[in-house]
């Protein structure tokens, strides 16, 4: 069966520090991968998605970037965090073709 792992679960980082969140999927190949953010009082905002290695689509201009160095690995990064980057970050995967997503357990990021 397919599983998705996301870590860390919680993170407190100072403003201006770098960020790296990692997500990996097991039990499937060539998944579509997604990074979402749930900010306080807001819905799930799509940040990045990838349909293959090295293929990244950005949905919202921001202080973040994403990379997919391996088929089942998706990384969310920032060189310098802002206070506004605080939120709950979710990784998800899908088999594509309109099938629903499976989400990871999320990372609560607090920038102080």
């Amino acid at each position: 069966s397919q599983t998705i792992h996301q870590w860390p679960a919680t993170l407190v980082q100072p403003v201006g520090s770098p960020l790296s969140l990692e997500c990996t999927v097991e039990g499937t190949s060539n998944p579509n991968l997604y990074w979402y953010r749930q900010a306080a009082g807001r819905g799930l905002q799509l940040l990045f998605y990838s349909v293959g290695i090295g293929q990244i689509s950005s949905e919202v201009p921001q202080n973040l970037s994403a990379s997919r160095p391996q088929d089942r690995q998706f990384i969310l990064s920032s060189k310098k965090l802002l206070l506004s980057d605080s939120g709950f970050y979710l990784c998800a995967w899908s088999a594509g073709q309109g099938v629903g997503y499976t989400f990871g357990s999320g990372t609560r990021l607090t920038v102080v």
Partner: protein
Amino acid sequence: DQQVKQNSPSLSVQEGRISILNCDYTNSMFDYFLWYKKYPAEGPTFLISISSIKDKNEDGRFTVFLNKSAKHLSLHIVPSQPGDSAVYFCAAKDWRDTDKLIFGTGTRLQVFP
């Protein structure tokens, strides 16, 4: 530009009664709709979906209704249980872009005894 809207940020329902969560959309190219349930500090989990060729889909206590002319869908939970207390997200897919789901802002449902 919020293409999927959940205008009620919260809903409180007594146990055993019906919970109705609403969702409106603006994009007429959406052809598939989903509901996700999310507990605090966890990722959303899939609940139920409906294709645009249908107007109703039922799964146990959960039923989703789709009114395409009104661009409106709703999730009915009958009977509501305390374990249903969570945030519910409506999501939609554009048939031209099968790789992405567009989510609403969520409705927090509280079921009290």
